[in-house]
């Protein structure tokens, strides 16, 4: 394991550099593309131009200062952990924390359920290949993958609405994270949150199930056709053992790597899902901030997304380094084949 550490440090340093660059790219892109003044100008009554200019320069967004100067001021703040203030004058860092937690409450159950069920379904499909369950699963997965996140979210929302109407009860909540102004004990509050969580979680989970089941099935089918598995079968190793120990185990590494690289698309799906369900998480904040021209908020979200995308890859790197000695060597020491 000792050789793994330098590799990981090298990898982490590279990732840190990438995060810094990606966040800078985000800020520069946002500062160049968004018009922070537009939000103030659209207010009723329209504030005097001097007030708008003063407000913008206080936020460090005044367009008359060169982009490089604005960027330098922003970067200096970020290094100290200060992400600046939003257009409606709140600390970006505090809001970021709040939104992150809201998104995590939606994303974690959805992805965990999705990954576990997806892998299980994929294994089952590969084990009983071409059986009725496998065929149905494949068709369903392809269909779900062809439905964009916002369409799936809207369809499930309509379904929940329909069930509520049909039963005459409020079984599902489909707007927001809880019913505003509802009083009651902690238990009632928890129940209310769960009712609101069910449908958005299902939106995320369905997509993940489809994705993982397809990938796991393909990997396992490849593994089942491999020489060592056929040899084990020929030796008379029982079918269940062959499946679990000889075929399934080596496929879990590429599946874990696959999972690590799904962070980006997952965030896209999350953004649209949050927007449909009025869930006040990061994705909704991003879309609203872009519409408002709130450069500081957008840059902070970009920074956060880059951290998430790259840290998701670290466990996969660790696993690969622990299992494959070739990965640990720096590129110039690797043998070229």
């Amino acid at each position, binding site marked *: 394991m000792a050789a793994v550490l330098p590799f990981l440090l090298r990898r982490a340093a590279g990732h840190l550099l*990438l*995060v810094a*660059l*990606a966040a800078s*790219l*985000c800020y520069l*892109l*946002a500062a160049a*593309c*968004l*018009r922070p003044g537009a939000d103030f100008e659209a207010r009723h009554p329209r504030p005097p131009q001097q007030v708008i200019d003063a407000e913008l320069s206080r936020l460090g967004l005044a367009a008359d200062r060169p982009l490089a100067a604005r960027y330098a001021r922003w970067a200096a703040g970020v290094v100290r952990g200060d992400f600046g203030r939003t257009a409606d004058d709140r600390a970006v860092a505090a809001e970021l924390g709040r939104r992150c937690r809201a998104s995590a409450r939606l994303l974690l159950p959805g992805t965990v359920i999705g990954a576990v069920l997806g892998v299980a379904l994929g294994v089952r499909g590969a084990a009983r290949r071409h059986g009725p369950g496998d065929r149905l699963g494949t068709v369903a997965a*392809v*269909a779900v*993958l*062809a*439905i*964009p*996140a*916002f*369409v799936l979210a*809207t*369809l499930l929302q*309509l379904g929940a*609405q329909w069930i509520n109407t049909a039963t005459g009860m409020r079984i599902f909540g489909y707007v927001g994270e809880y019913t505003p102004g509802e009083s009651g004990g902690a238990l009632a509050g928890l129940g209310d949150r769960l009712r609101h969580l069910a449908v958005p979680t299902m939106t995320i989970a369905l997509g993940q199930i489809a994705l993982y089941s397809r990938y796991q*099935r*393909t990997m396992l*089918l*490849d593994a*089942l*056709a491999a020489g060592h598995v056929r040899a084990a079968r020929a030796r008379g190793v029982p079918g269940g053992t062959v499946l679990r120990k000889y075929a399934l185990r080596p496929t879990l590494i590429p599946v874990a790597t696959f999972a690590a690289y799904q*962070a*980006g*698309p997952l*965030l*896209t799906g999350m*953004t*649209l899902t949050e*927007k*449909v369900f009025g869930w006040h998480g990061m994705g909704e904040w*991003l*879309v609203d901030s*872009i*519409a408002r*021209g709130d450069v500081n908020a*957008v840059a902070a*979200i*970009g920074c956060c*997304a*880059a951290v998430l*995308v*790259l840290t998701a890859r670290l466990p996969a790197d660790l696993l690969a380094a622990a299992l494959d000695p070739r990965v640990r060597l720096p590129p110039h020491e690797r043998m070229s084949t």
Partner: protein
Amino acid sequence: MSGGRWRRVAGAPAPATGLVVMFALFVLAFAGPRLRPWRYDEVDFTAFGAPPSAEHWFGTTQDGRDVYALTLRGMRRSLVIGLLAALGATGAAALVGIVAGLLGGRLDRLLMWVVDLLLALPTFLIILIAAPLLRGRSWLLLVVLIAAALWMITARIVRAVTLSLERREYVVAARLMGASPFAIMCRHIAPHLAALLIIDAALNVGAAVTAEAGLSYLGLGVQPPDSSLGTVLAEGAQSAAGYPWTFGFAAGLLVLTLLAAHLIGDGLCDALDPTSAGRVR
């Protein structure tokens, strides 16, 4: 490219079905509106929020516009954006990948570094941030934006394949005979990448149509008065509970488009790669 390979493609059911469906969707989008008398901006004062009927095949919106005309108008734009963005993304990936692989050295490192940097951010985020640029500009800029978000991974694959092809004897021979890098690229490298690039372009059509629909749904893609499936769906979602046809037909056509693109791309992938899981006996 050997003839047998393409014959296998023609015989494979999935890509052929996908191509037929995609072609039918294009015909529907471009010729479909002529089948009906209603234009997308006409209001039928006798039918507000009417369900599908012989007069209005897809029903009407709450303010009496024909959903069939609206949907097909949006689909036309979505299909064109998807096709152009996919071609742009695959073309850019091929160019960057081959150039990086063939020329190597500092340019290679720089290009791959840019790819890594762009891959550190979710691509949708990049398009979203740049989307306000689209206000008041042509939808062609949206095509460029979407293409710019889709080329990176393929560029890496193309580079890897180029590196392995470059060491083959016939390429070395061509170089020793004085062929220019450009000639090597066009004559000896690109043809071997054709299958990969065709598959990539087909899958990119799906990705581009999805990206466009998502952006337009959020109000950040195609800008009114122009419309696409995304804007039609955004409008339909508002009234979908009471008038499901304002959302359902556009959603169905969008999913059908994506399924067709998937069938073409994935099916070709299986048909062209004899070792892929779909073929294991």
